[in-house]
């Protein structure tokens, strides 16, 4: 289990005006590790993910992702984002492009792949998420769960080293939640480093290597899932778990 550190946050602070969102976050994730972030709404989990691919700049602290210093002023932002993939709660597929074009857009435009290369890999990925028959469909014609799976394939097409999932099942019907969770399970099983923000406690317990409980912009407790879920030490963790489980 002694894989190199891939993500490192040290004492990261972020405020919007006088609202402090992150108040000194420190965590580290190794390669191929699955880290789950749980906690009440507004505790800064999404913001934390967004600082890792520079969607949100931080006020202070040290962030290193795949050997790149994210908090450095001269950061090559698109370069960073080639290493980190992000899946959003609202899928954010491009409505004017077909499923296939959604997936091949970035590999062609950013990685410089040829159309054949990109499409071949896209079809492969679509098969892995069981949507190869929907290549020509448009996002408006797909269900929420299907759109989310396409979004995951779209991010995977860039061959990132880290995948981040920001409450990706929160907007889905219960029936479709399962199919998306299965997809995430497959991604994790393939050895990808995953950072997952989720409310699905059972899923987190089953899949995570490390669970982080955040509250009020700080990491209150962290550890192996068995530890956190059955014997939480901090009263805040206990209260939260009582509410959701």
């Amino acid at each position: 289990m002694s894989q190199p550190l891939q993500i490192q946050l040290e004492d990261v602070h972020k405020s919007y005006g006088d609202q402090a969102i992150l108040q000194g976050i420190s965590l580290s994730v190794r390669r191929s590790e699955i880290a789950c972030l749980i906690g009440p709404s507004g505790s800064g989990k999404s913001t934390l993910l967004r600082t890792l691919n520079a969607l949100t700049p931080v006020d202070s602290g040290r962030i290193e992702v795949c050997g790149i210093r994210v908090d450095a002023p001269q950061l090559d932002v698109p370069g960073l984002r080639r290493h980190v993939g992000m899946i959003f709660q609202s899928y954010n597929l491009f409505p004017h492009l077909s499923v296939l074009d959604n997936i091949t857009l970035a590999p062609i435009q950013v990685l410089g792949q040829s159309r054949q290369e990109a499409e071949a890999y896209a079809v492969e990925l679509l098969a892995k998420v069981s949507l190869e028959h929907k290549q020509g469909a448009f996002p408006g014609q797909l269900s929420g769960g299907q759109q989310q799976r396409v979004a995951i394939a779209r991010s995977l097409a860039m061959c990132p080293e880290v995948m981040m999932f920001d409450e990706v099942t929160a907007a889905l019907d219960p029936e479709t939640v399962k199919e998306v969770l299965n997809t995430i399970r497959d991604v994790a099983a393939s050895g990808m480093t995953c950072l997952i923000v989720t409310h699905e406690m059972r899923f987190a317990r089953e899949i995570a290597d490390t669970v982080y409980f955040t509250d009020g912009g700080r990491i209150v407790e962290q550890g192996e899932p068995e530890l956190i879920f059955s014997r939480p030490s901090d009263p805040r963790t206990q209260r939260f778990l009582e509410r959701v489980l």
Partner: protein
Amino acid sequence: MSPLTLLSQRIRPQASASRFWGRAVLLLAVSVGLLAVAWAYRDIIGLLLNWTPALARGFALNILMGVVAMLAATLLGTLLGCLQVSLHRRLRQAAVLLTQLLRNAPWLVVVFLVMNLLPFEFKALDRWWQIPDWLKASLGLGLAGSGYVSEIVRGGIRSIPVAQWEAAASLALPRRKSLRLVILPQALRSMVPPWMSLYCAVTMATSLANLMGVEELMTTLQLRLTGEPRPDLLLPAYLYVFVAFFIYIYPISRYSRYLERKWSLNS
């Protein structure tokens, strides 16, 4: 139902047969009236019909000027509109300022400006190129219209949810490519109705070239009128101009309003 419909509601008996005959009689009366007027003014109508080929050439110039002006306005305006959402502060401020300047200048003044300041010929590739007057006027109108296109483009871009920008950014697409490949294609649809309205306005504004001596519809008409000193010709002649523009502009205007309604209902 709009409040207007509520206000105009009243109980009306459905007497369809008598309404049909009433309408038929009205239509007949109007047709007879029109024919009588046409007969009375047959010499004027004949004269106008005589002039029609020349007038049609003039109107064709109006339409050409409108197309050229709209092309120039779209090119410059799209660039300005994209710059208005740039992350470079200086570029953005310059684009915003230029857009406001162009939108707040009367079109006739801008046309005057361009006509006076553009040379009538310039040297390039070892020969002298002439810029005809109508082209100068079109470019002037294009400049005037570009401010409006810039605002249309800016509005369209800003109507796309931030989530789309973020999704493109997360895929490592740089901002300019995101704008070109993800944002603008989606924004295009909402930009079409106001763009069409602007085209109508620009085409109508080409009549201002008359004040510059360009041989468009009204200039051609006025040249012919000076040869025929009949005071009772003036009214029908200018009515002719009305009709020409109306026939061209009204369908486009209706269609753009139809599109606007259709697309706003859809989304």
